[in-house]
């Protein structure tokens, strides 16, 4: 099919007609191209940029007891003066108040630990699935994805039933005689870790699987042939080659985990200070929309910076190879 097209293009056209023909056939005129490029931009504009601008605007306002509960940035004064009131107080507060700083640090730490745990658990899982016999792979992947068929909220609630003092876990351990009195897990940081690792594990396993299943197994054979024991071959070949998968999985776990609200709220104790929860409190309990918006934007900035750095690093790696 390609050949006739190619020969048509190659046919020498008279000079003038050739130029016209080129212009008419140029990519610019193909409407499909514009739809193709425009649609995602439109989508981003409508559902990302616009909300972002709105939140940013609210973060510079002052809270009011009104509808909407924040002051306007632009106001007409009597003598046709447009007054702009930008309140940076929210950012100053977020920066200076230890409560918020701790909440951010706490969230980053919890997310970091959970990402690491997910990697620790998810890597062997992904590796196992990627190296399983062909006919086992789809069922095993199904098992990873299956929990998604239940609502996230319900799955987190289910952990309450498992972790509570007379829950499944404690009853099981006491039934075995391993412990005499129930372990207090629910409403402790441990429960938050368990909940986050459980919920986000698939986001680690899937990209890792996608990466590891593409691994050329002859590379491992080559390593063995050159005198490399299996464990060293893993460290020197498999691990470095799966780095893109590790990065992708880690970001997919880390980013939502930082802002996680439901899990610390349901499983964590009252002293759990994750920023997602704080946001919720400011927004709904304290009705301080501007402060909540400022918190949200600082959170966004905290996540964008490492993300962009990683992206840069990856493209640099890609550029080198």
């Amino acid at each position: 099919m390609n050949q006739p097209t190619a020969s048509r293009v190659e046919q020498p056209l008279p000079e003038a007609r050739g130029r016209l023909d080129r212009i008419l056939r140029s990519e610019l005129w193909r409407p499909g191209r514009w739809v193709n490029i425009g649609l995602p931009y439109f989508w981003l504009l409508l559902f990302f940029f616009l909300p972002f601008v709105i939140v940013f605007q609210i973060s510079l306002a002052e809270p009011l007891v009104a509808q909407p509960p924040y002051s306007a940035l632009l106001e007409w004064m009597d003598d046709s003066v447009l007054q702009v009131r930008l309140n940076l107080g929210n950012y100053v507060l977020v920066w200076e108040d230890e409560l918020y700083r701790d909440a951010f640090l706490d969230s980053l730490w919890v997310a970091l630990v959970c990402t690491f745990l997910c990697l620790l658990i998810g890597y062997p899982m992904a590796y196992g699935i990627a190296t399983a016999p062909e006919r086992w792979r789809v069922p095993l992947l199904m098992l990873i994805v299956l929990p998604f068929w239940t609502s996230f909220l319900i799955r987190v609630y289910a952990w309450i039933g498992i972790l509570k003092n007379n829950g499944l876990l404690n009853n099981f351990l006491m039934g075995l005689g391993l412990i005499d009195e129930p372990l207090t897990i629910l409403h402790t940081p441990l429960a938050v870790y368990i909940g986050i690792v459980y919920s986000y594990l698939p986001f680690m396993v899937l990209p890792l699987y996608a990466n590891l299943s593409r691994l050329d197994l002859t590379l491992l054979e080559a390593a063995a042939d050159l005198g490399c024991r299996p464990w060293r071959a893993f460290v020197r070949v498999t691990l470095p080659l799966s780095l893109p998968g590790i990065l992708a999985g880690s970001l997919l776990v880390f980013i939502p985990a930082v802002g996680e609200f439901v899990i610390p709220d349901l499983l964590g104790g009252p002293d759990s200070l994750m920023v997602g929860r704080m946001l919720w409190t400011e927004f709904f309990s304290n009705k301080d929309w501007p402060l909540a918006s400022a918190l949200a934007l600082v959170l966004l900035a905290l996540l964008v910076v490492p993300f962009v750095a990683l992206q840069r690093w990856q493209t640099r790696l890609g550029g080198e190879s």
Partner: protein
Amino acid sequence: MARLEDREPIALEAWQDPRAKPYVRIEGVSRRFGEVLALNSVSLDIYQGEFFSLLGGSGCGKTTLLRLLAGLDRPSSGRIWIDGADVTDIPAYRRPVNMMFQSYALFPHMSVEANVEFGLRQEKMPRAERAERVGEMLDLLHIGELRKRRPDQLSGGQRQRVALARSLAKHPKLLLLDEPLGALDKKLREHTQFELVKLQERIGITFVTVTHDQEEAMTMSSRIAVMDAGQIVQVDTPTGIYEFPNSRLVASFIGSVNLFDGKVTAREGDEVLVAGEGGLTMRMRCLQPLALGTPVAVAVRPEKIRLCNECVGPGENRVTGQVQDIAYLGNVSIYHVQVSPERVVTMTLANIHSRTEQTLTWGQEATMEWSPVCGVVLTD
């Protein structure tokens, strides 16, 4: 097997010397993949310094055999010895063997240098010595200027050199090559073939190579094992395989051949008379004791058939027909001559004269002949 070599053998080759100890001994090795018997009780001796080729079509078991030698796979039964040690149960990473993979299997995340160095690092070789060896290997294969590049910045030919350098870096006593030249274009392939042979003569490694390319096997090998359906059909020197194939299969796998079916009708000294189809009588040299009436095939290579303009009437080893097709290859031309409605004989003639002066053309009658020593009588 009868061998018609004019020159006196000066020294026995290792495989002819009953006292020689094989470097690699494969004894009754089978490999089964589920229901499929990929290797069926293969036995083979390979001697030090040989350039040994495993030749066969795809699925004949040649790669399986190579992988068993490398230790990347275990035989279902049988034993393998390398340098006098039974290595059947020794994993790949402890064998004194290196392999060059068909896909080259270069580590994509490492530079050329790091790839070549990889095996040496596993040996815990001191840094200075390592650097020296890497430099030596890069020089040997003329890839010094590529040392900092990554595999995906290399051309096919360059990758192949890097793969070869990597597999040679540890100075293995036995080097396995899986279709080493498969991915190269013809020109580069021929060039590399000679380089490989030169290299082998220089560093005295035993090479075992797998190939489906008979020309490659012919050029490079000291000996060739022709494989089919998990078994070795014939092991011999390239000359032996080409001139004295032991079966129709080998005869037609290596080069092209005219096979004339017939029955043995008489024996005269070390020659037999074979009656073929269409009244063709053939007189062939044959040292094998064959009973009269044995169905055989006479195999004659196209270049062993000569044009006989002065021949008149029927005679032994003589066929007449019409030229149907001529393939001009520059140095030689291949003629397809229709000698009977269902029989075409292929003849290759060197183009001694320039093309314009060629006498034999399409539709012309040609009488062809061959000598009794220029072919073999096959029973298989």
